Structures are given as C-alpha cells and as structure tokens.
C-alpha cells in the first residue's frame, strides 16, 4: 500500500513541485499519473523511492515510513521498487544483457538465477535478439524496453514507470502496456506516469491528474 498524506515538496522555485498531495494506492492497484509538463509527476515518483526527500507530510510505502527512513536502510525500500526512469539510465558500456543482469547482481542474487531471470525479462520485452548490443546501438524505443526489463527483473512489489511509452509507436506501446498489466496481475502495484492520450483514453484504470503540484479531481 502506498499512502501520501499532505505531501509538500519544493525545489526552492517560485511554486512548490508538490503542494499538499494526499492519495492512497492500494496494494495490487494499477493507476495512471498524468498532468501537464512540470506538474510534479516525476517528483511524486521520486519521493516514493526517496530519490528526493519530502519537505512536509507523510509517505508510507509498503510499511516503510519514507520520510523518516534511515539512509542505511534506504536500500531495503529501493529493492522493493522497480523504476523505469524517464531518461532510462542504461549503462552505455554494458550490453543489454549485462544491463538487466546488473540490477540483480548489485543486490546479491547468485549467478545462475541472474542468468535465468535476465533471459526471461528480455524475452518479455522482445529484446533477446539485441542482448549483446550496447545501449547507444539501440533505437530510442529499444532502450526504453531495456529499461522496462531491468525494472521488472527483480520482481519488485511496486513498479514506477515514468513516461515508459514516450518513444514507442502505438503498437509497441500497447505491447508494453500488456507487460505492465501482466505484472499487475501477478500482484505488482503499478504507477504509470504518462502523457499518452491513447493509454489514458483506454480508460480502464483510475487516473490521478496533477496540476501545479496538486491533485486534480477527475
């Protein structure tokens, strides 16, 4: 369960990036997060895995009190969360396979399991053919799919995806959405920030709309 209560976050600019956000996302939910550019979507996601600290308010993520979480235990929170970053954050000097495997190695998964899981994840996003390519050798959409595979490979209980279809054509976007739905059926809580009107219009999942840091009733 993800709970935010009156969360306030300012980067020191004229207006705060998050301005009293209160919302609840239940375990196993699938929700969209949308809103115009600069509304605070990325900021909200960043606060969930404590990439940014909040200024005021309460954030509970799967039992972790994120605001009060000690630095030395931060990694425990982060291991529960898979993130598809808006800018992917792939390592250019590792192959696709190594990029996905890396996510498991750093949390101490043993070698055999790493191999099996990585293969499985690449298969899901349709990139087994490109497993030995390096990210700069991939198209924008392929990179995005690697990022998704990496976020899913550790079987997180929460998946945060920031504009995961921004560089994908409609057909591919639908496929990727299917992947997220598959994960969601397996019990993963999914929060998907997007501008993609087609995804939103499909309208099967609740939409949280942000505007200037506030949740807009919809």
């Amino acid at each position: 369960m993800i709970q935010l209560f009156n969360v306030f976050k300012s980067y020191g600019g004229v207006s705060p990036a998050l301005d009293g956000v209160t919302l609840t996302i239940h375990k196993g939910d699938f929700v969209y997060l949308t809103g115009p550019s600069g509304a605070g979507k990325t900021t909200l996601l960043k606060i969930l895995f404590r990439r940014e600290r909040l200024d005021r308010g309460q954030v509970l993520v799967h039992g972790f009190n994120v605001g009060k979480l000690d630095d030395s235990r931060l990694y425990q929170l982060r291991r529960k969360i898979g993130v598809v970053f808006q800018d992917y954050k792939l390592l250019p000097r590792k192959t696709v396979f190594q990029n996905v495997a890396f996510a498991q190695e750093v949390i101490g998964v043993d070698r055999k399991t790493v191999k099996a899981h990585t293969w499985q994840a690449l298969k899901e996003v349709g990139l087994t053919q490109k497993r030995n390519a390096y990210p700069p050798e991939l198209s924008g959409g392929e990179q995005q799919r690697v990022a998704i595979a990496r976020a899913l490979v550790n079987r997180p209980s929460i998946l945060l995806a920031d504009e995961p279809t921004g560089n994908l054509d409609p057909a591919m976007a639908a496929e990727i959405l299917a992947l997220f739905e598959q994960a969601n059926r397996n019990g993963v809580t999914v929060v998907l920030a997007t501008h993609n009107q087609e995804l939103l219009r499909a309208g099967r999942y609740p939409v949280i709309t942000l505007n200037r840091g506030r949740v807009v009733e919809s």
Partner: protein
Amino acid sequence: MRALFQFLNNVLGATAHNLKANRQVFLVSVATITVALSILGLFLLVFSNLKSMMSTWDRQVQLIVYLDDDVSEDQKSKLRALFEGHPEVEEVAFTSREEAWENFRHSFSGGADFIQDLDFNPLPGSFHMRFKSSPDRLDKIKDFAQVLNKQPGVESLEYGEKWVARFEKFMIFIQVFLLAVGGLLCLGLILIISNTIKLSYYSRQDEIELMRLIGATNRYIRTPFLLEGVCVGFFGAVASLALLKAMHYYIQLRFQESLDFLTRGVVIQFLPFSWSVSMVVVSMAVGLMGSYYSIHQFLESGDRQ
C-alpha cells in the same frame, strides 16, 4: 555465510571488471606509483647503506692516549687496567713507538722518500680506545679524558670531538631530509591514488548513481574502489621494488669499486627485507587512504539520490 560469499564474489568480480575496463588508467597509476616509490626507495637505499657505513665510521670514534717516551711498564699496565675497568670502553689497543713509526713511514710511502731517511723515531707510543655506542658517548669520553690527563706517563690526549659533532649534525640533516622527502612523497602518493580512483569513479559515475537507485548497499558500492586503490598501491610497490633491485644490481656491478672511497669497502646492500615489506604495506595503506578519501567525498555528496 552464503550471502557473504556472494558479496565477495560480486565485489571481486566488479573490481576485476573495473581494472580491466580502465586498464590504461590503472597501468598509468601503477606506473606513477612505481616511479614515486622508486625514488623514495632510492633514498631509503642510500639511507640504509649510510646507516651501516656510519656504524663503521662510528667504530672510529676513539680516544687516543699518547704516552711519554720514558713511560715505564708499570705505568703502562696501570693505565691499561684503568681503561679496561671503565664500563664504557669497548676495546683497547696498544701501539708501540716502533709500530707507530712503521705505520707512519708506510703511510708516507707515496712519493716522499725523504721520510724514509730519518734515522731516529720521533713518534710516541699510544693507547687507542673504542667506546660503546651511546648518545652521550662524547660527554663520557670528555670526562674520562679529564681523569686520564692527570695520570703519570700520559703525554697528551686526542679525541675526535669536532669530527663527531659534525658527523652527528650530518646525521640529523640526513634524517630531516629523508623525513621531508618521505612525507612529501606519501602526500603525493595519496593525491595520485585519490586522483586515480576519482578517474575510475568518473568513468563509472552513472553506474554508481544507478546502483544506489536500484538498492545496492553503500558497502557494495564502495568496496571495489577501495580494493582498486589497494591494488594500485600493491602493484606499484612491487614494481618499484623490482626496479630498485635492478638498479642496485647495476650499481653493484658497475660502480661498487669506484664508490669505495665513499663506502670504505662496505658492500652496498639492498633494502632490508623488513623495509621492503613495510614499503609494500605502506603503499597499500596509502592506496586505501587515497581511494577512501575520494570515494568518501563522492558518496557523501551524492547521498540524497
């Protein structure tokens, strides 16, 4: 237990991978360390050899008691008893007038034949005493000289006061110098290694940021860098010892003879084994410090991410 093994396995793998990925930077760093340590080692080599030479010269610090020409056997043996009874005297040697004359003539054999023609012996007999090594040896010699001066049969006394004082000042000089150079070099090495690690860090900055974001522990991130620093230190030290050994061999081969007038026959030795080991250990410690220093900075500053 299995987790620890897994951790070590991954960390060692990461270190090896880093070294390979930045092979050139790594080699450059090792080379730099090698050069720096070779210079330090050269100083240590000179120093350790000076020390053993000095203990040779040290043996030459002595009190010479010149005897009256008409000293009696009785006076002589009394004096000898006095010397040998003194707790600080290590060794006493007697040179008779005849021996002194022989030595003198011998030392002038070069080109001054005229000395040989002298048909009487102008030289006195003498006792030469060596004292045990101790910091206030000179004071003890002076005190003893006071006593001896009043003894019957003693003509005059001579001791290397001036020379010893200079010698000791020179020792201080050498040590100050070595400390300064050694200190500077260690500082330099820490800087160099921390630069190396920084370089290694920069080339993997994104990787580290990502690792933190996907839940790696700080220790997991830090350890490969620390190991890398230690490796740089280790290989640098070993390479510099090899280089020094080669230099030492070369010097012995080509210049031992021509340096005789400085070394006075003492064979130039390599660094004592314990010093060599210390060099490696210190270098590894310096590597650890250098990498800790730079990695600490980075992990501190990026803590919010």
